[in-house]
């Protein structure tokens, strides 16, 4: 990609014209952006595969630690590898020094045992199926879809972020770019009834419909876009043509503003697989005025698998070191831009994993798991929610392997973030199925 940046630059102007992006429209975006306004962004860090968060925050002592270490066996984090979390009886895995710093500074919080729920559910109710239980628990793809949607509904559909865009983009974002940007893969995230996300590449790279046919290029680019209008009656064709049209439009605009990016003094460690995605996200925040965005939502898809069915003790430390280094870079670059108080990062993952170790030194798919949020707006230094009992077959374990019924609903977690972002509380119920079954829609962590 790097090989032709100069040449690509030469072709952007033509592309922007072809895509119907006039200088006038760019001007209006700038005008909007220079007016006094507030700015907020949310970053979702999605740990695909099911993060075994049993090893992220751990009871630091007493019978709960004993229960933990006995059940986990050689996968347990040693007591001297736990960093005491103030205002709690828990310790943070020492693999997270940057996250710990943010917690101490009051800028990070944990939310214990979050998972998809239709309504408040006890172990007894689950076992008797006397309340509605979310479908397709413990299935990767469906639970990822649920987490992307923000509530308990598995499968492909809309998401809280896309529905938020439906509600707010007209007031907060220019038409040049969607409110939601995905770096990596996603299914539901950013999909509303009307909204679709923008997919950005790593390292804030330009993406264009590059042409190297000399004088033939203008005619070729014109024809390529004309082909997006010929309909033969097939629904799939029309759908693809719409995505193509978005690709032309958004990439042309994206390329046109990237030249204004000024880089960062924060260093993005090249050995960290998340750096390239974070660089894109930070750059799009830096360019918020040029883009004309007062609200942005990002999803960073962690490319490494957290599906630690085997040899977890060998794999998980590397995953956590990667996440923590990413957090350190995130905090630094947000502070550098003066946006730390305006940006909130939250984690998502398919599910947590069985507390009990399996015979391969790993753990299997479970349900509720622990999550964290980071940002200057976070009311941090605190663990929210209810930590489950770690006793096998105890109050929260559904089957004797350490699969915990969530004590906080995913919809509550999402609603708290959406409320901070500016979604009116009257709209949350329609966005997050089941939310109204819970006594509070705002957990107060941000």
């Amino acid at each position, binding site marked *: 990609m*790097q*090989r032709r940046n100069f040449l690509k630059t030469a072709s952007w102007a033509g592309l922007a014209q072809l895509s119907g992006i006039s200088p006038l429209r760019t001007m209006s975006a700038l005008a909007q952006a220079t007016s006094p306004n507030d700015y907020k962004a949310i970053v979702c860090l999605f740990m*695909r595969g099911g993060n075994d968060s049993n090893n992220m925050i751990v009871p630091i002592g007493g019978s709960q630690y004993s229960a933990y270490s006995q*059940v986990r*066996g050689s996968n347990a984090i040693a007591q001297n590898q736990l960093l005491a979390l103030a205002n709690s009886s828990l310790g943070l895995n020492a693999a997270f020094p940057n996250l710990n710093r943010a917690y101490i500074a009051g800028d990070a919080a944990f939310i214990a045992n979050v998972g998809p729920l239709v309504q408040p559910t006890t172990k007894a109710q689950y076992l008797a199926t006397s309340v509605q239980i979310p*479908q*397709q628990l*413990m*299935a*990767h*793809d*469906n639970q990822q879809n649920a987490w992307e949607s923000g509530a308990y509904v598995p*499968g*492909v559909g809309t998401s809280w972020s896309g529905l938020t865009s439906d509600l707010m983009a007209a007031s907060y974002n220019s038409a040049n770019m969607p409110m939601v940007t*995905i770096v990596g*893969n996603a299914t539901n995230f950013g*999909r509303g*009834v009307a909204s*679709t996300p923008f*997919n*950005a590449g790593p390292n804030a790279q330009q*993406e264009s*419909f*590059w*042409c*190297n*046919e*000399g004088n*033939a290029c203008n*005619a*070729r680019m*014109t*024809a*390529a876009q004309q*082909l997006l209008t*010929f309909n*033969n*009656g*097939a*629904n*799939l*064709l029309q*759908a*693809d*043509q719409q*995505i193509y049209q978005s*690709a032309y439009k958004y*990439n042309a605009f994206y390329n046109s503003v990237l030249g204004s990016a000024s880089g960062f003094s924060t260093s993005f460690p090249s050995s960290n697989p998340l750096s390239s995605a974070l660089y894109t996200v930070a750059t799009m925040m830096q360019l918020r005025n040029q883009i004309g965005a007062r609200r942005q939502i990002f999803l960073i898809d962690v*490319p490494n698998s957290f*599906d630690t*069915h*085997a040899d977890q003790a060998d794999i998980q430390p590397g995953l956590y070191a990667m996440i923590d280094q990413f957090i350190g870079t995130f905090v630094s670059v947000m502070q550098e831009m003066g946006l730390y108080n305006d940006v909130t990062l939250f984690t998502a993952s398919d599910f947590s994993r069985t507390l*009990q170790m*399996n*015979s*391969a030194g*790993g753990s*299997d798919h479970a349900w509720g798991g622990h999550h964290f949020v980071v940002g200057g707006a976070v009311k941090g230094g605190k663990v929210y929610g209810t930590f489950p009992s770690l006793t096998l077959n105890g109050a929260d374990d559904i*089957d004797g*392997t350490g699969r915990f019924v969530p004590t906080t609903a995913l919809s509550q977690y999402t609603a708290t973030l959406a409320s901070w972002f500016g979604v009116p509380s009257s709209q949350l119920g329609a966005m997050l199925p089941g939310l109204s079954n819970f006594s509070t829609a705002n957990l107060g962590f941000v």
Partner: protein
Amino acid sequence: MTYVCRYSMRFMRSLTRAASLFTVGLACVHADAQLATTLSTVSTQPAAQTASQTNAVVSTGWDSTTTTSLQAAGRILNQASFGPTINDVFAVESSGIASYLDAQFKQPAYIIPAANPQTVTTGDCQSFSCDTEYYWWNDVIFGSDQLRQRVAFELSKLFVVSIDTVDPRYLPNYLNLLSQDAFGNWFNLMQDVALSPAMGTYLNMANSTTPTAGQSANENFAREMMQLFSIGVYALNQDGSLKLDGNGNPIANYTSAQVQNFALAYTGWTFANNDCSAPSSANYYWYNLPPGQSCPMTVLPYAHSTVSKTLLRGTVLPAGQSAQQDLTGALTNIFNDPSMPPFVAQHLIQSLVKSNPSPAYISRVAAAFTDNGSGVRGDMKAIITAILMDPEARADDNGGISDANGGKLRDPILWWASVMRAMGATSTATVPNVAFFEQRFDLWLADLDERPHVTPSVFSYYSPSFQLQGTSTYAPEFQNENTLTISQMAEHMQDAITDNWSENGVTATEFAMNLTANSFWGEAARTATPTNLVNALDALLLHGTMTQGMQQAIVTSIQGLDPATMVRCAVYLIVTSPQYRLMM
């Protein structure tokens, strides 16, 4: 009208000059005849193919035995191969679809050689996967076992392994078992997959041992074998619809307890020795020499759980059975599940033909899975035949769109391979200098979210249940169709067509599409009108479905260009268009 055009066809094949052919072709208004006109010119031009192949095609001619139109021939080749070539279109036109499938069923599987177990660097290759990728691509683009390899490719997106976590030296064995079992029985496929060192590594069945007190058995393979590979989360009716309980809710196919019971049944297997014999103690994977590279896993009796296991539908594997007995029992239990025929039918129809099959279509294919007509369950040839010969698959063979939700998006690998095949690509790459395929094809396809043999997770590149936004229209491949992948798609096709496979400023010469001024297409561009060139490309690439508006837009854009540029621009415009990316 049809008769007149066919007569013209025979006449045209006796000619040699492309210009004359195009001129004659214009007189023919029947769509099929127009295709014949434009495609026949190609068969007179050895540049695209070998002379003997071309002569063979020409000599078969268009005679009274022809039962299949060229349009239908092009269409079935989209469904039953990695895309039509000029010669294949004529061959199917001549033989008919059923005979083509028969001949393909008799094609033996191309066998990918085992990877060198100890040396990464062979020639210009710098990875253990590089040679394998070359062999695989070579067969995909040039091989004759097209139907087999296409089915194997679709199976590889069901029985997923990924060489980002599995040692690539296990890949040849895995790809070979998929292609060898593609025309066998589904049960054997399940068993071969289960015992492959690739799957053993990917989902941890290798060295999964009986749990000690306070442990459970690793559920990775046990869960995905049911959820993703065989029956799905919920019970299905034969037509693929969800079975519902009395309250209208779907019925779970299995419980967590059953997953654990299957996991116990699968314990006690380890990698074979390098000579495929069974070790007396566990063979562990190690990088310097992965054990049992080309062998099924073998039993490690002491590591097998001998407790009784309760499986689906109340089936119990009694205590004390061997690992092999339990494996056979567990796979048989899944194989006989009523959800399996519709689950497999839906996957394969969506892979080969259309994203939104009717319930009746699924039901007919599921019936063929259940019974091939001779009482055999899981006969792959019967399943494939049922899929490809179904009236719903063949409905639009002679044009038209009978189902507004018909067709499917070609996934990037299929799209890429189809373009290379159609445009008469040639390769001079030979072992050991074959890095081109991994460094260009594979890495470019990674930008389109479909790097061959590297899936992001066990649920493959995209979900069969992905739907178009705001609709109930299934569109699995659209999961990776977005603003980024589309620009990458266009960019890399430009890299291939115009920029001589340029990557980081380095071009490559060992692989080429036949698009020069001296190629058949270049000849057409020099001697015929742009309209004729576009019609010919329409015949081959879109089996004659190009609309007049599309044709005019392309013709307008290429008028006045030099022949080579004209060909490159016309081909680029068609193959990167949504019209071509979709397979109608």
